């Protein structure tokens, strides 16, 4: 029998599910193909009736060794991988990676490119949250919201397709800038979309947020207190829903985030509904950031989007660097160690979903199976990011 620390459940993923002779429990597998596991997560649950005695996430069904791949590919060649790590917030990951390499090599980024990066990353954050909003409610049994979320997201994707050329796994950031400039027509369409999206929030609130069925499913469910969130290293909306006022964009400003006026939504309750509210409010704040960036972009120095692009065979100077940014799911961290060759010596990715998922085993213990679904959804998991 393996021994494990009772304080931190869910860390020992290979614990045995051995039943005693008198146990009247049942072991079931939720996933890896279950729709509520948002990808290929397998959760082994030990049930006593409908109550969960033990729940353990099992990873490894989509592992593609991104970190190892980083050591075999050049800095340029590793760039499209970022869109595959977290396919819903590809821009956030690419932004972190290019910033890490720029920091390592001292590559200068034009001011206009910084604004473009911020606009696109924030739009991607909203599209990620919108999809979460729809998918979470789908988990809880409501089908209509996902259709509305997709309809709104579609408008945003059409706008983002113009400069990036893709609709999901964007490869838009470049070392020292971005791929393509935002034309005045695109900037204008973003302005129109911001106005449109603002008008949609009341509808979202009427349809879902105030709904008694949703409240019944998420209020006082999966309560994470502040200490627990810190103990497991939770970040992003999960931590902010537990009263931790931490946002990389505010606390460790990067890019041009220090030039914008926005609030960090924080809720003290720590339940699934608090996490829901944090994400919904975050979308509104992202719109504020986009609006301010649109106002400031024309005043940015120069019209360059890339000042001096490094070659595909770029050799970063020897050294190591760590870059952290705020992704849609929490703190994205990338550590790059270089030995001065064309390929990185070592790349380590810190995925926010991984730490947030480790909370699940403790949260789910003692709840009913239906609540486990609403807890799992409220953490907002993207399995490729966790499994890398």
């Amino acid at each position, binding site marked *: 029998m393996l021994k494990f620390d009772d304080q931190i459940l869910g860390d020992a993923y290979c614990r045995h599910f051995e039943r005693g002779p008198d146990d009247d429990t049942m072991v079931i597998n939720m996933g890896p193909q279950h729709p509520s596991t948002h990808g290929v997560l397998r959760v082994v649950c030990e049930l006593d009736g409908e109550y969960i005695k033990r729940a353990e996430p099992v990873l490894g069904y989509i592992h593609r060794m991104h970190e190892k791949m980083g050591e075999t590919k050049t800095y340029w060649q590793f760039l499209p991988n970022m869109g595959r790590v977290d396919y819903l917030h590809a821009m956030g990951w690419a932004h972190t990676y290019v910033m890490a390499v720029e920091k390592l090599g001292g590559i200068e980024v034009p001011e206009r490119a910084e604004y473009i990066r911020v606009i696109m990353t924030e739009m991607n954050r909203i599209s990620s949250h919108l999809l979460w909003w729809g998918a979470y409610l789908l988990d809880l049994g409501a089908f209509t919201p996902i259709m509305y979320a997709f309809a709104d997201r579609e408008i945003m994707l059409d706008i983002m397709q113009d400069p990036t*050329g893709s609709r999901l796994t964007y490869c838009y950031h470049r070392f020292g800038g971005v791929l393509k400039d935002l034309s005045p027509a695109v900037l204008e369409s973003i302005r129109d979309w911001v106005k449109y999206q603002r008008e949609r929030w009341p509808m979202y609130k009427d*349809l879902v947020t105030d709904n*008694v*069925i949703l409240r019944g499913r998420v209020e006082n469910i999966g309560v994470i207190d502040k200490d627990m969130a810190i103990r497991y290293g939770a970040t992003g909306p999960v931590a902010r829903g537990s009263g931790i006022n931490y946002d990389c964009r505010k606390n460790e400003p990067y890019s041009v985030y220090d030039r914008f006026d926005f609030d960090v939504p924080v809720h003290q309750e720590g339940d699934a509904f608090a996490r829901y509210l944090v994400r919904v409010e975050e979308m509104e704040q992202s719109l504020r950031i986009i609006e301010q960036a649109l106002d400031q972009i024309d005043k940015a120095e120069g019209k360059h989007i890339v000042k001096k692009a490094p070659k595909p065979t770029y050799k970063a100077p020897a050294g190591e660097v760590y870059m952290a940014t705020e992704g849609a799911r929490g703190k994205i961290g990338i550590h790059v160690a270089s030995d001065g060759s064309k390929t990185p010596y070592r790349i380590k990715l810190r995925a926010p979903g991984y730490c947030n998922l480790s909370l699940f085993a403790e949260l789910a213990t003692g709840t009913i199976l239906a609540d486990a679904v609403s807890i799992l959804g409220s953490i907002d998991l993207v399995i490729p990011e966790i499994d890398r």
Partner: protein
Amino acid sequence: MKERKKLTFWETVKRQWSLVVGLKVTGKNYIKPQITTHYPRQTVDNISTFKGHVQLVGKPKQPDVAKCICCMLCVTSCPSSCIKVVKMKPPKEDPIPEAAAPKDMPDAAQPAKQAPPKAKAPKTPVKWTLDFNLCSLCGTCVEVCPVKSIEYSNDSYLAGYSRKDFEYDLLADLKERAAKMPAPAPKKAPKAVEKETAEQAEA
């Protein structure tokens, strides 16, 4: 298990009312026109900005010949190794012709044999294939191409029965596209010639 708290009458009414408000939203959306696209009867119109698979660009005067100079930058920069380019081989060297000098001449007096200059390999691809099954759509090949010989296609409605259907021979594809292109407009005669012809016609 959480305990249910007892609700007052007005709290119950308020909670029930939230369902009516939600239904109102659904009702409003129900009578709105449909926004879905009925593929394949309808297709979307924003394909021009879509980054499809890459295709070769022809020379302006010879649209069926690729601009590619076989520099292999696209091959080296590709993260998925999905591009294969084969360069045309240099022409075979002719054997060195026998010296015209008489045979009885001493060797020292014979003119020195000069090797002819090596023929340079033409910068033309004979094979340019893309395995679209592997492509990660990063667009690096298009960016690094020094002669702008690669561009994105707008081919987005892809379907096939096997993986081989997505292994494209882009040179053949370029020739096919060039054959379908409309014939170039006849060149306008220079002004001087025009005048002469006009004068001749008058005479």
